[in-house]
Structure formats: C-alpha cells, structure tokens
C-alpha cells in the first residue's frame, strides 16, 4: 500500500504564474492566462449590488410607507426585519411590537414544522461547504474551476458568484473572456462545460442550474443573462453536477434530496433516480458513460449502471461519508476516500471472470495510506490526513490529492494495467507561502490542442497555477 512518507518535492516545472520556476521551460504554458482572483475581487465593479444601493434613503419617510417599500423591494422577511428595527421601534413602538409577535409566531411555526418535517430545513452555506469538493468553500476565493473538454476555455467561479471565462493568450487576445454574472446565480458549488458543444456552460448554484450560451456576441459588452435556468423540483441547491460523455444527459445531486436527477436539457425533461437512503452529495460519471458514482451525506454510496436498464449497487463505508472520488481514464477503476479515515480505496470495474459480474464480485480494496506525516524537506510541515479532493490525470499517470487540514498537494504515480492498478509515491507540491493551501484542483482534458497533463490549482490566495506533468 502506497503512503505519503516517501514523497519528494516536485521538480521545478514551468508555471507562468509561479515565481522562480523556469528551469524546465515549456513554451505552451506561456499562452496560459495569468489569473489571480484576489485582484479581481478587489475591483468594486465585480461586487454584487442591488438597485436600492443607487438611491439615497429618504429620511422623512413614514413608518408604514418605509415598511411597504421594503416589502416591495426585498420581500416579506425584509419588511418584517424593518418593522422590528431600532428606528421603527423608536418611531412606532406599536408596529414593532406587533412585528415581534408575528415573528415569534412564525418562529414557533417553523420550529414545529422542522420537528415534523426535519428534511425541510434550509440548507445553510456551512452545510453546503461540508460536502463541497472545494476546501473552505464559504471563504475560498476560487469556488470551482472547469475546463472545456475540446477547446482552450477555462471557467473560474469566484466567491463573488461571478464566473470568469479565460482563453489562450494570443497576439490580439489577453486571455480574458466574458464575465458571467446573474442574480439567479449565487453560491456556486459546481459547473461543467457541455461536451460536443463549443460554448455552453452549466453552473450549479443555490437557485438550481444556470445554462450559459457564450457565443461571439458577448464581446460587444452588452448585459448577458443565462440562456435558461432549470430549478430543482424542490427548490434545493445543486451540490454536484456532471454531463455524460456525449452531452445529452446531465446528472445532478443535491444535499437535500435523496434522488439523483437526470436531466435531458434539450427537451427539458427530468428523471429522478430514487432510492431510499440519505441525500446525495457528489456525483461522478465514468469516462465511458457506463457508470455513475453517487456519494451521499452519510456512509452509503451507490454505483449506478447506466446502460440498458439503470440499476444500482449499494455500498457502505465504515464511517463518515465519501468526500472525494475519481475514475481512471477508461473507467476501469474508481478511487475514493471518506471523511472518517485517511485511506484511499479502490473499486474495480473490470470483469475478471468470463461470467457476468455481480455486485458481490466487486470488492473495495485500500490502496494508499494517507495518514499525515512530515515532509522530507521540512520537518515542521505536515502532509496528509482526511482527503479533500482527488483528481486523476487524463493519461492515467498521476493521481493528485489535496487534504482538508494540511496545505501540501500529494501527487502519486499510477500504473494502470488491464486488471490491476499500482500506486506509488510521487511528489508533493506547496504554495508560495506555508499558509497558502489548494482550494480546488483539476486537470485540463486532452484534446486536439492539448496533449499534456496540465494540473490546474486554485490556491486559497486566489492565484490559479498551471503545472504540466510529464
């Protein structure tokens, strides 16, 4: 079983936004955009603001008028808060007293409702963060990174609920593309470019799914809106989404819903895959479209077989819930790690026997021990612990792991054979400072313009870094 004890520091690979790494120069990386979200988040134009901010409040407004205006501006709850504010309490104590009674009654009702229907509890940002792939999702500058499958297009979602699209740097293009911002797109948890399509991006957020069609006209600088939005039937936030290989079906999971939803966006149809058990948290479609891995917020996880009749195999972890999972490039192996123990497990999807395999034939094997240990270069720095994210490079040579509590990235070497998988120690990678940690990592897919495994790291500082692994 592989472990973290024999990892070496990664050789100095080229990286345009890295400092001082220029020894193994790779010219292609010069064309990658330089991204630092921290700078862009400081820009006031990027901040979300409402129409109300543009006007100076009227001081002489009467209390009922102010409350009714707040109602039309911000809805019932805002107006109730306004009625209970200090200012109203001074000017009209009777109104604020009545508002207190109403608030108290509503509070009682909601408490009673939660007792009877505990599943109707509003999903807070903290709860979303608990199951998100991004580390410290609530405060992280980078919330998600998605590469286009066929083209050089990189979408980066920031904490400001804005998605920025970047492209290759050329003589007449600095690499910055359109900025996707909408009031119907808050608390972004996941996103994906649609396969076999040059310009469609879907963003999973609190409001559901926002579909963006990014065509050439966007450079005209006009206000753009999502081409359409699809809401979860129970108005729940989307916690994970993934397209199938040919871009016809979109699978989504929500931490408030037990069913996995399979959307057919072209015909606007929806098929819930229902099973008894805890709500779903993470989804991963195998590269050949044959299986869907579906983790839940509890110990249970399922692997759905997606050809002919859709059926599922149920598995149970020893404790915690599955935090991260990834498929090998041809879908023969699945690696996953739970929140309960720092062990990497493998599930094999290759038939060893001639007979058709049953779920019992498959077994979960531990393949790597990820217990925290000190790095060889610095005895004070730890690496390992509970896994945050797992990504496998598209060539199947490297496995990248980030952790919940330690700041270094572990890179293992993998050797995929027909019926076996070997994992051996590789490298570790640190940020610019010891406090900097990886928020989100992913690999650029292989396509006609890219034949390298380029690791993309969104650091906690808002810096995006690219590493070409050989």
């Amino acid at each position, binding site marked *: 079983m592989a472990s973290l004890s024999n990892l070496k520091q990664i050789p100095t690979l080229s990286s345009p936004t890295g400092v001082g790494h220029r020894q193994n120069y790779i010219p292609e990386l010069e064309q990658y955009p330089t991204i630092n979200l921290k700078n862009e988040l400081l820009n006031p134009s990027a901040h979300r603001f409402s129409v109300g901010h543009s006007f100076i409040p009227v001081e002489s407004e009467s209390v009922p008028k102010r409350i009714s205006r707040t109602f039309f501006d911000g809805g019932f709850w805002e107006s109730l808060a306004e009625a209970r504010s200090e200012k109203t309490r001074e000017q009209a104590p009777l109104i604020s007293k009545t508002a207190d009674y109403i608030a108290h009654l509503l509070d009682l009702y909601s408490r009673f409702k939660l007792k009877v229907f505990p599943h109707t509890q509003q999903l807070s940002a903290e709860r979303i963060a608990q199951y998100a792939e991004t580390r410290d999702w609530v405060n992280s500058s980078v919330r998600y990174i998605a590469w286009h499958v066929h083209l050089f297009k990189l979408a980066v979602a920031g904490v400001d609920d804005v998605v920025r699209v970047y492209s290759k740097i050329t003589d007449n293009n600095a690499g910055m593309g359109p900025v996707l911002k909408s009031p119907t797109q808050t608390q972004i948890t996941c996103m994906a470019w649609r396969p076999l399509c040059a310009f469609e991006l879907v963003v999973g957020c609190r409001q559901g799914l926002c579909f963006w069609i990014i065509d050439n006209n966007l450079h005209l600088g006009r206000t753009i809106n999502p081409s359409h939005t699809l809401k979860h039937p129970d108005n729940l936030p989307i916690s994970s989404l993934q397209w199938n290989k040919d871009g016809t*079906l979109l699978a989504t999971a929500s931490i408030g819903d037990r069913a996995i939803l399979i959307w057919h966006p072209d015909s606007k149809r929806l098929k819930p895959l229902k099973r008894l058990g805890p709500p779903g948290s993470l989804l991963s479609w195998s590269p050949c479209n044959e299986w869907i891995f579906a983790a839940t917020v509890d110990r249970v996880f399922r692997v759905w077989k997606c050809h002919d009749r859709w059926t599922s195999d149920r598995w149970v972890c020893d404790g915690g819930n599955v935090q991260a999972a990834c498929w090998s490039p041809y879908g023969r192996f699945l690696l996953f790690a739970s929140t309960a123990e720092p062990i990497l497990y493998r599930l094999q999807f290759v038939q060893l026997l001639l007979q058709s395999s049953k779920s019992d034939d498959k077994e979960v094997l531990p393949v790597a021990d990820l217990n925290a240990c000190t790095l060889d270069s610095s005895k004070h720095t730890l690496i390992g612990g509970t896994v945050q994210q797992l990504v496998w490079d598209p060539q199947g040579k490297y496995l990248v792991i980030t952790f919940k509590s330690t700041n270094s990235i572990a890179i293992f070497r993998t050797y995929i054979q027909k019926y076996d998988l070997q994992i051996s120690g590789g490298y570790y990678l640190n940020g610019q400072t010891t406090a900097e940690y990886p928020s989100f990592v992913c690999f650029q897919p292989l396509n006609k313009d890219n034949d390298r495994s380029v690791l993309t790291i969104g650091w906690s500082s808002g810096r995006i870094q690219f590493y070409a692994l050989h």
Partner: protein
Amino acid sequence: MSNATITTCKLLLFGRCVRAVLLSVGVQFLLLTVFLLLVNFQLLHPLDWVMGSLRLVCSFYTWFACIPLLGAVVFYGMTLSHQHLAERRYCPTRYRWLLQNGPRKLLFLFAHLVVGYLTAWLYTGYLHTDYRHFVHKCYGQDCLNSYHIFLLGMGLSAGCYYFATEYMHEEASIDFDFAEQSRPEKLRELLYGTLLKAPISSVMPTLCYTFIFWLFGAFLKYRLSVLVNVDTDDRLLGILDVITNGRLLFYGWLLSAQIVSNMHLMRCFYATLLSEKLPMVVARNRVSLGSEQEVTVVAGLGVLNVYVVQCLAANFLYEEARRKNSSVRAEIFQLTEPGNRPANWRALCDQCVSIVGSFTEELSDSMRQISLMKGNEQNFASIHSDSSAALLAEKLLLRQYNQMHGIRPVVSLPRDVPNQEWDTKAMDSIRHVPNWCERTSMKLEKLLQQLLRRIPGIVYFFSEPEGAKTEFLLENALPVIWLTQALAHICVASINEDSYGVVQDDLPGIIKALHRLKCELDRLSNGMPNFRTTSNSFNHLRYAVRRSLYNICTSFYKYLGELSSSGEELRQLQAFVYQG
C-alpha cells in the same frame, strides 16, 4: 418497404398492445380496491375495514359486475392501439384534419365516455344506498335518484375531460425514457405518481362539473324522467343543495380521480411497453428459419407509415452506436462473405442519409411558405455563410420590428447595383402586360377571395396556418434526432473499430447532410425566434444535429480539408468547431 417487415413489426407491437391491455385489466381491480378502502374507511375497526373491502373485491358480484367495464377497457385499449399505430400524415387545413382524423377521434371519445360511464356505474354500486340506484322511492312512488345521476354524469365528464386534455388536438405520444429502469420499478413509480397526482388534478374538473350540473341538471333530470316515465326527486335543485352535500362531492371527486388515474395508467402502460427496445438485427441471418421474426434496422427505419417503428429502429441504432463495446457496431463495419463488400454499412448509411436528406428537403420547402422567412430569404443566405449568424439575426429582427411599426431606415440598404440593373433590364424585356380582360378577372378573383375570407369559419377551416408544416415536421423529428447522433457516433467509432475503412468514403456525404440540416435549423432559429423559445422538439433537434456535427468535426478535425466539398464549407466547419 416490404409488406413482410411491416407485418412483422405490427405483430410485434400488437403483442405489446395485448400486454398493455392485460395490465390495464389488472389495474382495474387495484383501483377498485383503493376506492373501496377509501369509501369504507373505519378508523376504529381497521381489520374489519381492510377485510371487508378485500372481501368485496373478491365477491362474485364484483366479478360479474366488472365484466362490462373490462369489455370497455379492452375496447379502449384497441382504440388506443389504433391511435399509436396510425400513420401520421400532415393535414394542411383543419378541414382535412377533420376528414382524416375525425372518425378515429370520435371513436376514441366514445371509448372514453364508455369507460367513464361504466366505471361510475360499477363504483356507485358500492356506495351508500342513497347513491346506489338510478330510481328510488320518494313520497311512496318511484323517482329518479339525483345523486346517482350526478355520479354517472361525473363518470362521463371525467372521461370527456381526459380526452379533451390529452388526445383531442394531439396524437398519442410515447416518451422514450432516457434513463430506463427495470419494469417493476417503472410500474411502481408510475402507480405512485399517478395515484398522488390524480386527486389534485381532478379537483378543478369536479368543481366545473358541479357548476354545470347545477345549471343544466334540472333540465337533464326532466328529460330523463320523461324518457323512463318516472318522477324527478327534489334533491340537488339549488346550488346550496349541491355544495353543502359533502359526501356527494367527495364521492364525485373520488370517482373523477379514479377515472382520470385509470386512463392515465392505461396511456402510460402503452407508452412504456411500446417504447421498449425492439429486437433488431443489422443483417438477416441467412441460415435462420423463415418463421423467425427478424427485423433489420434498415427495414425498421424504412417503415415510414408506422411512426413508432421508425422511432424504435432509430433508438436502437442510437443506443448501439453510443455503447462502449457493441457487437452491432462491429457488424456494421464488417464486410460480406463472399464478396468483401461493406453491404451492411452501405445499406445503413444510404438509408440514414436519405432520411436526413429528405427531412432537410421537406423542412426547407416548408420554411419557404413562412412569410417571415420568405421576406428575408436573401438576408438569410448571407447568414448561412457567416459565422456570426446570431448577430445578423438580431439585425433582421430589428428590421422586422421597424417594418411592423412603420419605422423607415435612415440609410437605405446597400444593394448590388449592377446586378439589379441587369435584372431590371431582363425583367423589362420579358414583362407581360395583362389586357383589360385579364385585369378584370384578376380583380374579380381577388375580390371573391376577400369576400370568402370574411365569412366566419372559412379561414379557420380551409386555410393553412403559417408554419404548420414546419411545426409538424419538428414534432415528428424524433427518428432524425437519433439518426444524426447515431451516425456521428458510428463515424467517430470508426476511427478505432473500422479496420476495413468502410466508413471513410461516406464521411463527406454525412458531413454535408448534417451541415445542411444544421444550416436550415439555424436559419429557422434566427428567422423564427419563437420556435427557439417555445418548441422543445425544435431545440432537441437543433442541439442534437449541432452536437452530431461537432462530434464528427472535432474527431476528424485534421482531415476536414479532405472531407469538405468546398472551401466555404471548410471555413464554416472550422469556425463551428471553435466558435459554435
């Protein structure tokens, strides 16, 4: 297409229809059990309640009383099968539609009424004695039972309501499942979904029927009393009588929910069973017995007059084309023995390209009839060859808006002056000036047409609505959606699997056919934005075609130069890959 193929397909589908009828018959007992459990509910004696209800279901009375309803269900099933297997022809006017579909629809409405009536008749037999009989004793003589009539009328109206909402204007449709689960799971979900949804959806029809019964009930009861020669009772005369009778309303609502659920379940059984995969082969096995029912994919695709069969064949091909390891795909790439000819691929490719081509042709012809598209044909031609089609479409929309509101352009549109002069001269030289007789006759004809158009109903019944043909084609484009994607997947898979190179010769033809269809759909999308926003079938087709073309273009990107027929097409395809 050979009659043998059509007969084989129809026989296969008939078997499924019979299974659907049997399921429908079976579900009657389930629904009856649910009804009895609801109407006989006893909180304090649960065992008695369940046992009593089950005993009633199993009683001889029920088995005998059910016979008329079961007969009606079989009749309903037959008419529903007829709806599914009927040829879908385009009817340009409503008059033609009535001529072609009127009798079939009337028969189907009759089936709905019969099932609704017999369900109400059967179920009222289990209700309280006040509701059970058609005639009852009041003031010592026989009277019509208003409650019973109300409930029978509810049965008829529920049947009529379901027909009007589901079948009156639309053809019986089958939703092919994109994430198909096992049959028991599907049935379980269907039952849960239906039984939960029907009580809510039948509230409004119940209230409407109650209102109508209050308005016309007295007249109906009077006519019936004359017919059966008995008096009418004095119940349900005023609106207060009706709305304060909670039990009657509850029974009426329950009955309506049961009938709506019943019809919905029957519809879904048919849709589920008919959409199941049809066993097809790429090529007929020569040594197979003649009695074996083998349908080839090519033959299935050619059954144009049974829409379901064409859909099933296209779906089969699509599913096999996208599968990871498919024996069907391997068979397509094989050469014949003896002869070494790619007969399987040849037949399949020719059939698919011909279907896609003829669809494009028909779509293009239908689009020429749309006045909005007609006016802008020249402009669209330029869009055709421009990658920023959406931008130009916006200009066109602006121009249409200006024309509609009488806003003239500040600067006249640039025109190709030499060509125009040449055209004018040419036109002048051959222009025919009509004499007074022709002019008068033309004027008279125009006047007559205008007069006719003023007669109410003439335009409604005898003129073709704008864009109706295009809409019809798009509504029935499911086989084309699957075929284009299947072709693309097969072409892409050929890179690794086609060891004899049977596909490569046809790639230019396939790319051309898909590109042409994509251009036509883009043209429609730009010219008629309402299709883009309202029609799911249009979006489904458009995105499927775009994805298919993208799949081929991105996989064969290096060879696009050799595969495209002209420099313009090459430029467009390259732009399509990078800019969409």
